[in-house]
């Protein structure tokens, strides 16, 4: 009997209840697809959270060894299906890097335009579903309302609303249609003021702050150690953005664009005077900061899209034609990471001289972002688990590939 007193769990909690092992997912409203978390809980307190992945494993890497580089584009769509343009871009760039193929100036701006527009759409979903995770349904529909308009724009340009296969090695499947830029302009004009609404509903909402501030704190060292990237990394205060610090093949896209990396420096985010202040409860690296970084990145992307449109208009020539299906890849290997909405999305390509790669490797951002779960969910409440997972903004299609 006395042995129970020595049990560390006995002294921790108010009433010692029996430990419970519960499965959150793979069918659970807030696990963003088919993530399964095995939670070991003591009452409401989670003592251990183990993610189990692989429910959406589609062997994308194996498939890549059997298809030519252009045929692989639709498979990249299905990795991060919320940011398919960025996935297409990542693959297109790595193929071009291997081929040392440069797209024309106009194509470059088109790519920035698409990538940033998709980043807005993706962050809107992240914001909406995060609200959903915290029990607030309305921001979700607001976010989808705006996202619909982006999808309309994409549909007009490539015919698809989710899996675009638009940006291809060599350029894009087509140029923008007539009047597209005006529509995009109109959308951006409409989006800017409603971001204020989202801040009211979520960012500066007292309940939201109480649910997210100080929850799931990820220190900068740990964030780097776990290889997290994107808003998760920058939410921990690490000033690292591949658009600025990445491979020259990628940063070349953003050459002469004006933007600031969204990260807290000296207690301030760039241009944060226009947005709700950081609440006193928030700790750098917590769920609130991750969310806030995403919200600010939407604004940043709006500006980038505006710049891209301006440059696209000014640029002469075409936007690049897709490479031939049978275009042989030179012998060699190339690795390229791009800054996708969820973080650093890396593609690695080994070619043996055929059009079909010898090996394709995909380094997924959500994969690394998710791996911190057991670290940050330890000792939190059950209700905090969706709050943390939601703030990581994972897409299972990308994790399982």
């Amino acid at each position, binding site marked *: 009997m*006395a042995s129970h*007193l*020595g049990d560390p769990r*006995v*002294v*921790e*909690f*108010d*009433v*010692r*209840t*029996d430990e419970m092992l519960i499965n959150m997912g793979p069918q659970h409203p807030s696990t963003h697809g088919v993530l399964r978390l095995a939670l070991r809980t003591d009452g409401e307190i989670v003592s251990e959270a183990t993610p189990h992945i692989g429910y959406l494993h589609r062997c994308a890497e194996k498939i890549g060894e059997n298809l030519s580089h252009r045929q692989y584009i639709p498979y990249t769509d299905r990795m991060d299906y919320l940011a398919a343009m960025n996935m297409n871009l990542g693959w297109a760039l790595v193929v071009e890097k291997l081929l040392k193929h440069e797209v024309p100036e106009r194509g470059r701006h088109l790519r920035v335009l698409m990538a940033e527009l998709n980043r807005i759409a993706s962050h809107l979903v992240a914001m909406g579903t995060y609200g959903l995770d915290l029990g607030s349904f309305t921001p979700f529909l607001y976010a989808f309302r705006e996202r619909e308009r982006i999808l309309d724009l994409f549909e007009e340009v490539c015919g698809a609303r989710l899996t675009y296969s638009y940006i291809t090695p060599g350029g894009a499947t087509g140029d923008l249609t007539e009047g597209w830029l005006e529509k995009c302009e109109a959308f951006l004009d409409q989006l800017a003021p409603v971001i204020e609404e989202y801040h009211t509903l979520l960012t500066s909402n007292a309940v939201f702050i109480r649910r997210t501030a100080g929850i799931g704190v990820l220190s900068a060292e740990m964030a780097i150690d776990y290889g997290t990237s994107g808003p998760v990394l920058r939410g921990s205060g690490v000033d690292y953005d591949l658009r600025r610090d990445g491979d020259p093949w990628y940063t070349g896209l953003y050459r002469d664009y004006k933007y600031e990396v969204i990260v807290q420096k000296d207690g301030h985010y760039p241009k944060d005077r226009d947005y709700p202040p950081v609440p006193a409860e928030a700790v750098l690296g917590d769920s609130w900061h991750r969310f806030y970084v995403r919200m600010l990145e939407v604004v940043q992307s709006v500006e980038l899209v505006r710049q891209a449109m301006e440059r696209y208009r000014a640029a002469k020539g075409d936007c690049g034609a897709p490479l031939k299906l049978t275009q042989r890849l030179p012998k060699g290997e190339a690795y390229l990471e791009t800054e996708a909405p969820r973080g650093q999305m890396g593609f690695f390509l080994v070619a043996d001289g055929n059009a079909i790669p010898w090996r394709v490797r995909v380094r997924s951002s959500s994969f690394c972002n998710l791996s911190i779960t057991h670290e940050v969910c330890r000792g939190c409440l059950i209700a905090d688990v969706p709050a943390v997972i939601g703030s990581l903004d994972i897409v299972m299609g990308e994790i399982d590939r």
Partner: protein
Amino acid sequence: MMTLAGMDWHAIYFWLFALLTCGFALAVLFSANVVRMAFYLVLCLGASAGLFFLTGAEFVAAMQLMIYVGGTLVLLVFGVMLTAHSRFVSLRTPSGEWILALIAGSALLALLLSAALKVPDWVKANPDRAAISAADVEATTPIGMGFAGVRVDKLSQTDPQLLGGMSGYLLPFLIVSIHLLVVLIGAAYMARAKRRAAAVDEGAV
């Protein structure tokens, strides 16, 4: 007696609630599952609140539902949940114990019932009940006043000897309040975090 006009509603409701109360009390006794026991206890106490309503003690009945059923029993069920080992705990009692208990119980019941029926005053119905309207048994405010120390329900009392003993329930009320406060603090203290347990353990080493 079953004329249309003379329908004794009190009796009908009494039998209804009495059967429910007794039935669920026995169900509590004979149930082997602790959660079901709690459920039957809820129904039993709820039905007895119905009996209180019938006697005109509406405030007591409401309090019974609120404090007893809504508070105490929820707490009890909470305790059941916290301490349930397997999901549905069964409490088997050896049959030998049952037989002994039932013999003793029926003896006790027979004694109590015979006592209840022996006193002539208790088996006599109130002759002028018809004259008492629902408004006459309205007692909520008088009870409140009684707790504050003023017995407005005994205004017609003229016997000075009796008057001395009914100056209200202010003192017991205060005592109970303090008692409850102590209980609350004590219960919180007992069920609080067990950090001290570890300290004692270390001290022993």
